[in-house]
């Protein structure tokens, strides 16, 4: 079978999951292509794990569909999942088996036999020394590594990683980031659910932000952070007057800070703002361009709504 370089390996269409009166996932459309790493972001309870559960056929969607390599997971689950390597948030293996035997058991399940390079995978994930130890003796970080190793059995086109860096030390986290990029370099699609926004910012080509099961932002990291807006931190004494001048100069969003103002404006408008203040006789001590980080944007997008005011009596 010819592998298309940017073939869609995962597509969900109108995916919905309701648990009783709670809608965990609400009409989610997403795509992952070969060679790209897509970050799935959202606060706790946003629906990330439920989405992954539906993609893997663990959870039955209330509506919509998930397709892996064009195969509907509900209709052709085994065929579809033959192309998927998945690591769930809680890495669970048989405690009485060694890491090597656990991988071998998964390899047999996936149709591999004695030829499956289990030892090579253990080495790749830094577990060669402890491959013969029982899984129950593994630290959290080692369990995560074994979980990631298991996703690579069977040469999957799509790798799904749910919080892969949980329990890893900084060096381990870096290794995993590098591994994720390698996977994309091997022309696999990677769906990465993570709370570590720095990690996502480093490795993801695109991010999807979901909140209460709905997709609220998507695009490259640059596109999403641009949506959060770049701004200028202006250090100025007379904040009230400075705000009036800047509004007059066309600035719409101004936030007061202890040292002055944060002014939302395009990065190229720095000179304009400075000129407007100076021509009004107000001199800023500093005008510092700032860009919203993914974390800023994430927090802004996913912050809980303010409680509604109680009805007037």
């Amino acid at each position: 079978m010819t592998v298309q370089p940017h073939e869609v390996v995962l597509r969900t269409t109108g995916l919905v999951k309701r648990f009783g009166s709670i809608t965990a996932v609400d009409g989610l459309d997403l795509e992952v292509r070969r060679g790209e790493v897509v970050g799935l972001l959202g606060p706790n309870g946003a629906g990330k794990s439920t989405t992954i559960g539906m993609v893997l056929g663990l959870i039955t969607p209330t509506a919509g569909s998930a397709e892996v390599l064009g195969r509907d997971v509900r209709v052709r689950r085994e065929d579809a999942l033959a192309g998927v390597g998945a690591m769930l948030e809680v890495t669970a293996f048989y405690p009485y088996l060694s890491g090597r035997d656990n991988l071998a058991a998964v390899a047999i399940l996936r149709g591999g036999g004695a030829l499956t390079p289990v030892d090579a995978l253990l080495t790749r994930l830094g577990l060669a020394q402890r491959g013969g130890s029982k899984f129950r003796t593994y630290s959290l970080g080692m369990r995560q590594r074994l979980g990631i190793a298991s996703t690579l059995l069977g040469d999957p086109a799509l790798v799904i990683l749910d919080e892969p860096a949980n329990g890893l030390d900084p060096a381990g986290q870096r290794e995993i980031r590098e591994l994720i990029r390698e996977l994309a370099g091997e022309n696999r699609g990677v769906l990465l659910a993570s709370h570590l926004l720095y990690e996502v910012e480093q490795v993801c080509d695109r991010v999807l932000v979901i909140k209460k099961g709905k997709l609220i932002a998507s695009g490259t990291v640059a596109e999403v952070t641009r949506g959060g807006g770049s701004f200028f931190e202006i250090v100025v004494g007379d904040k009230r007057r400075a705000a009036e001048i800047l509004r007059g100069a066309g600035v719409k969003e101004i936030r007061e800070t202890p040292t002055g103002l944060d002014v939302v404006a395009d990065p190229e408008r720095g000179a304009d703002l400075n000129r407007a203040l100076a021509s009004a006789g107000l001199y800023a001590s500093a005008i510092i361009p700032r860009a919203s980080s993914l974390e800023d944007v994430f927090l802004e997008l996913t912050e809980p709504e303010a409680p509604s005011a109680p009805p007037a009596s």
Partner: protein
Amino acid sequence: MLRQLRSELYRLVRRWMPWIMLGLIVVIAFVFYFLIWVSVNAQIQAVKSGTIPAPPGGIAPLEQTLRQIAPDRVAQLGVGIVGGLGSVMLIVFAASHVGTEFGWGTFRTLLAHGASRSGFLVSKAVSLVLYAIVFMIVGTIAAIAASYAVSAAAGISVGGSVDLPGVARVAAKTGYTFLPYMALALAIAVWSKSAGAGIASGLVVYFAEGLVAGILVSLNKDYAQIVNWGLSRNASALTRTSGGPATQDPTASTLPDPTQAAIVLAVYCVIFLALAYWRLRTRDVTVGG
């Protein structure tokens, strides 16, 4: 589905529990034969020396009891020992074999790696049947060996050899009666996602249902028409025809026909497995299973 079974067997042979149970049934077979010889022989010696009064009929009934340890009686005593304890051990094993998958969260891992729910159930059921077969073979061989060893030590003539086809037939029927209890333990473990619940339910039904059925039929034989649709009476009907312990049952005349019993037990197996499958198929697998 074959891949799932292979993976299941790969894991099964690397687990301690099944090996420990096989070791236990071997030890138990020898210990029981030895204890029977020691205790009956002690009674005979005590009667002979006048330490205790002779029972009605003298020592002949005691010597008859001692004769039970001879190899030509393995089908009755040896298989009875293996069946009596083996049933409990296999119920515990069946529940554990399935329930731990939920406790460890490995059911979810298996599904995430492409296993199907039906494949999971079939591979569990088939591996349990295979294990029950191995268990009965090992237990029966141990009983035969124990019979020869203890008979030789006791000075009982071992001239009458083991009727191997007969022993195999009895062991097969006895093993067959375990299957619905194992299927029940499996189904409860699936429904409750707990090995403990499967073990408890399996054992309670195994002991309580037989007890209640026996009491009811003792009170009024008409109750047999109802309780003969249960597990224990049908299991007894099969073991009775095999010359096992149920021959002593005073209500044996009301037991169902053996063929009907075999069919009823098979139907129970199908029902329990179908219920387990229905639950697996309709349940969303979130944390654990």
